[in-house]
């Protein structure tokens, strides 16, 4: 009888129909950390294989978008960005915003785009969305360098730019954005395995989302111009992050303390919900994807 007790206990693992209600299984992710780095490396390296401009493509997209935005929204539509050069304002917003959308669209596709590999081998599925978040972070850092080049240029030309105490928190804001993107992405990816409807929503939804996320205008401006609808923006956690990062980098706008606390709370609830749904889906999505 005693032997039997020991026997029952020393199973290394069990394969069961369902996961536990909530499990991040960080230990397993840690065991597969090399896979994570290799995946990130693959994503970074293969992007510019067989291109002439190579990694320059990382820089061209935000630069051209910023130029276009500056012409359309600032010069043509007349949105004021205060003392900060409009181009730099747009570049900062777009760099940060791009990171979020890349995380969101990348992770929301996790199950569908990895079905081939998921269908054959097991590894912690969460590695795939983590790869997206991390490789985009590297891309983001490269884009940030180009931002600082222009920052230095405008500073030298005499624009009123300054870092402040909150700039130190910039990395934290970026991480928060990554987690939010990952959380939403995991929720969507879990739901999209069976019903593809959300895929279509994401396509144009992200573009529309930009307009309510204070990317092309300061938050204060919308509350001033259209007070009737401006309150919508104040419920959007993304708007706070974009506004805050701009404050950190350019010293414009304000640091919305309550807004940021609200954002942190939302981010973590979204993330936890994402993990829950992801957990439920990962075990048998391969049958329905």
């Amino acid at each position, binding site marked *: 009888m005693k032997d039997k007790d020991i026997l029952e206990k020393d199973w290394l693992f069990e394969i069961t129909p369902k996961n536990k209600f909530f499990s991040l299984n960080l230990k397993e992710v840690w065991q*597969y950390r090399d*896979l994570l780095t290799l995946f990130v490396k693959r994503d970074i390296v293969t992007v510019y294989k067989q291109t002439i401009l190579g990694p320059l493509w990382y820089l061209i997209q935000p630069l051209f978008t910023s130029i276009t935005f500056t012409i359309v929204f600032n010069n043509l539509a007349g949105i004021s960005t205060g003392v900060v050069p409009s181009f730099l304002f747009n570049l900062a917003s777009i760099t940060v915003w791009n990171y979020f959308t890349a995380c969101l669209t990348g992770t929301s596709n996790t199950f569908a785009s990895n079905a*081939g590999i998921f269908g054959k081998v*097991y590894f912690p599925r969460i590695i795939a969305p983590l790869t997206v978040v991390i490789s985009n972070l590297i891309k983001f850092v490269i884009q940030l360098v180009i931002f600082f080049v222009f920052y230095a240029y405008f500073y030298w030309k005499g624009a009123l730019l300054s870092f402040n105490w909150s700039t130190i928190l910039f990395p934290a804001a970026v991480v928060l954005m990554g987690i939010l993107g990952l959380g939403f992405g995991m929720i969507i990816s879990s739901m999209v395995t069976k019903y593809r409807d959300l895929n279509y929503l994401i396509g144009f939804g992200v573009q529309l989302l930009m307009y309510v996320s204070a990317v092309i205008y300061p938050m204060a401006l919308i509350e001033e111009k259209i007070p009737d609808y401006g309150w919508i923006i104040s419920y959007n956690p993304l708007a706070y992050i974009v506004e805050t990062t701009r404050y950190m980098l350019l010293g414009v706008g304000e640091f919305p303390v309550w807004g940021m606390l609200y954002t942190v709370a939302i981010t973590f609830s979204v993330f936890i919900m994402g993990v829950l749904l992801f957990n439920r889906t990962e075990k048998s999505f391969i*049958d329905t994807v």
Partner: protein
Amino acid sequence: MSHNPQPTTHNVILKAENISKQYRLGTVGTGTLKDDLNRWWHRIRGKENPYLKIGEANDRSTKGTSDYVWALQDINFEVERGEVLGIIGKNGAGKSTLLKILSKVTAPTTGTIKSRGRIASLLEVGTGFNGELTGRENVYLNGAILGMTKKEITAKLDEIIEFSGCERYIDTPVKRYSSGMTVRLAFAVAAFLEPEILVIDEVLAVGDAEFQKKAIGKMQDISKGEGRTVLFVSHNMAAVKSLCTRGIVLEHGKVAFEGEINQVINFYMNKQNNFSFPNPVFKKINSEINGPKILQCELKNLEGDIKSIFSAGDIISLHLIIQPDLEVKKHYCAVWFIHDKYGEEFAVCSSGKMNNKFYDSETILIKSNIDSSGLLPGDYSIRLVLHIPGENNFDDWTAAINFNIISHDINKTGFEYTSIWSPKAFLKSEWE
């Protein structure tokens, strides 16, 4: 990373309990949403999933009434440490589903699998290979996907590259590889995995003959030399027989037979061959090939009756009708290979040289008599070939006809030769 086995009273490393897997047929659409909502409605009221009660056994050839089928139903088995378990069954019997569950690709609908060791699978080699990356980078990536750490891969890198035989291309992107080379490299990575339990599905069916031999040799090393636990799924009965110690036959998602590997293979082959065994006549009416062709072939006994069940020692008479081709000037011959029930080439008989100048008719009949005393009881099939020795084959029919040897008493001792050692042939001998 190796996990030291605890000394336990009995050495079960893997245990499957009541494994079932249900699939929904048809497409996913609004109809599925209805079922999902119903399932959810049952769950929140604390009731059982209503769709688990229905579903039919998975027989792909019959039209069922339910949208739900059981790909696996109530599978129970245990695997002991160091055992090589063969899993055999027809297409769609649930083998791959079982392996998918074992390798955690998909979860069972009910039941649990308990394991005392890391499981790694060779479900399909080359998973995650990226064409843009070089061979070396892919070895790392693929190794990591299969669960190795960077350090483990680095330690084995040279061996892996050598085993694959792709040294020359190792720093070239994989998209430039031939498909055979890709498979070699991928198999090499997988072969150097060191899990306690290895799950292998049909990977031996790849690569050229030389590499297949190498692959089977490696499998044998893994299972016999290193004492690893292996679950092996294959249609190649010869490979199953040489690698496995025990086996399971799956049929329509259920375990139909379980036991020692020779018994398992016998059980499976008997089921398989019911419809075609024995078959003493082969007829080909329209054959498109050029050159001399085989039109008909019959197995007869010495009296001239068509027959396919013989006792060892009987004369098996093969009547072959061929249509010569007057254009072919070289000598050619008719050859038949006798294959055993595992499909392995077992023996060969060959005619003498034949040449057109001997034949002026439309068709010719060739007779040959085979002394069957070397054949042990069992099922055999015959492959017919017409060819110019050392050059081309004109006509080639695998398993064209088949026959049984039912008893073996050529010494007329009254007791039949039965084997517990399963040798392949019997040699007639004189005793003093």
